[in-house]
């Protein structure tokens, strides 16, 4: 009599165990390793002695030192932001690959948009000015040569009509 209920409980326990395993493995999968976090931070830092390379991309001695310090600080339990702040404190905002929108830096973010807007306005004004109103075509005075030519053609037309 007790066998079916035991099977039922065993089934529930198995289901719970499988669910637990699935969730915990999913949790482990989303948690980033220290090395991944080192790379992530290194991409946010520009190598101070390189030309346009991030710390992640550079093989310079300084970039190696910086990566080593990032790893050490992450192992000590610091957050990504705390590590970035450590470098900003020593090298200034210029070490960040994306300068923060504060102080004069906000210009870096808005200037491209302003430049595009000003360019668009300039082009619109140019096109507006260069577009000739249709009525104006006839009002343009003809060159002196053209005027005499049209009079001559009129006379030719009149003479031809006489012979029709």
């Amino acid at each position: 009599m007790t066998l079916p209920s035991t099977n039922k409980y065993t089934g529930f326990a198995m289901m719970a165990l499988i669910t637990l395993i699935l969730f915990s493995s999913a949790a482990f999968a989303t948690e980033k390793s220290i090395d991944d976090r080192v790379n992530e931070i290194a991409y946010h830092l520009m190598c101070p002695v390189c030309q346009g390379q991030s710390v992640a991309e550079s093989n310079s001695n300084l970039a190696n030192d910086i990566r080593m310090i990032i790893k050490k600080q992450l192992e000590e339990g610091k957050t990504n932001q705390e590590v970035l702040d450590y470098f900003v404190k020593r090298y200034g905002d210029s070490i960040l690959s994306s300068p923060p929108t504060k102080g004069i830096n906000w210009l870096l973010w808005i200037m491209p948009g302003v430049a595009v807007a000003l360019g668009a306005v300039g082009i619109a004004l140019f096109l507006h000015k260069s577009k000739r109103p249709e009525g104006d075509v006839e009002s343009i005075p003809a060159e002196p040569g053209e005027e005499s030519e049209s009079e001559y053609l009129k006379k030719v037309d009149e003479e031809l009509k006489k012979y029709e």
Partner: protein
Amino acid sequence: MKIVNSIIKFGVLAAIITILAVLGYALFGDRDLTKTSPLIGKEAPGFTIKLYDGKRITSEELKGKTVLLNFWASWCTPCRQEAPALEEAWQKYKDRDVVFLGVNVWDDNENAMTYMKKFGGEYPHGIDPEEEIQVNFGIGGVPETYFIDETGKIRDKYNGPLTRDIIDYYLERAMKPEEQTS
């Protein structure tokens, strides 16, 4: 049409004035931008240097003294250029509670020892065994030199080879109370 032309002229003038104002602010407005290091005016990072004579020296032991902290490497040509000026200045300041400390970075030990014999002078040199001091001080290359006052505060940083005049200028500043130099 006349009004449109006036608006355009006014707009162009306003844009030119704005650009000039922004450039002026960038050049002269925020003095922090012209500093050679954001650490200037702040407490110097703590350090322990392992000297080439086997002793160790810590930043705590240097409190109460003016410190010239010079970063160098044996492969660095400007470091060789500044070496005579550093040694001359050391001879001048060594009896005035001033400490000169050379820190070798990004180098091979054997090359560093050869360099030391030729250019090292008489003041102490060493390395950070943890290889962190160069990043803690925000070094971007060599030679770079920090001037630290007796309270342990960074007063100035100089990038590039030093001369006697430059050393005198910054050391005298670091030896004076801060309010007299700002």
